[in-house]
């Protein structure tokens, strides 16, 4: 991992289109400004990881036969 030190208002460039700038530092929180082309998705890592984790949980939970029976019972009224 490349490690760079930056001061307030200083930035780094990734390639010639992505800029990450230090906007503010308050205690343990660093506020970053990110300029990137619209086709580059920018996400907080936790959000991506949270969604990935939930996808894996969803894919492994399935839908057992008992659940299907229960669903039919619950949603019977809405389908008529």
């Amino acid at each position: 991992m490349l490690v760079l030190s930056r001061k307030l208002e200083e930035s780094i460039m990734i390639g010639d289109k992505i800029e990450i700038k230090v906007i503010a530092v308050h205690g343990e929180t660093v506020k970053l400004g990110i300029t990137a082309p619209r086709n580059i998705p920018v996400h907080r890592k936790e959000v991506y990881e949270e969604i990935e984790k939930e996808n894996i949980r969803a894919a492994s939970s399935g839908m057992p036969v008992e659940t299907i029976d229960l669903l039919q019972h619950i949603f019977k009224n809405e389908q008529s």
Partner: protein
Amino acid sequence: MTPPVGVSNANIMEDALKLTVSHLGEIDVAESEILNATVPVPGFPDSHRYFFIERDKIKPFKWLQSADDPNLTFVVVEPHYFFHDYKPKFGAFDLKEIGLGPGEKPVLYAIVVLPEDLTKMTANMRGPLIVNPAGKLFKQVFIETDRWSVRESIIEGIKRKEKAALQDKKKGPQPEHKNAGTT
């Protein structure tokens, strides 16, 4: 040079795919029902093609089945069934990626987890799927707001929806028709 007749015919005829789904066995899927993920669903980098399986018995839910992995099945639902107040905004780039213009609306799906205790069923409202059925494309997008979580309670959503429907009724010009109760 014109292509040999046999070849073009073969392309036209080759429509149904025989696919294995672990919980249903072998099923026929029309080529035209296959949706392509423009980026893989996070957590499943090797699946690119999916299709919906609809069955009366699981309505309003559907299965979103990977055509590349018989063991990969999501339970999904269109959020409006349970969440009347879900109005996420999508970036023009995400829409363009699935072949839609800025004014066009994708079909939304939320991935659902149905635990044994169905009162605890949740929908991932933070990472909805946006689908362009005509273009056969979809992707999972991330909503950058804390308003919706990856485990939004479906029961709570239904309660809010019913409450809102009741309030609309009260406001509305038509008087409420009460069912005659028997005692």
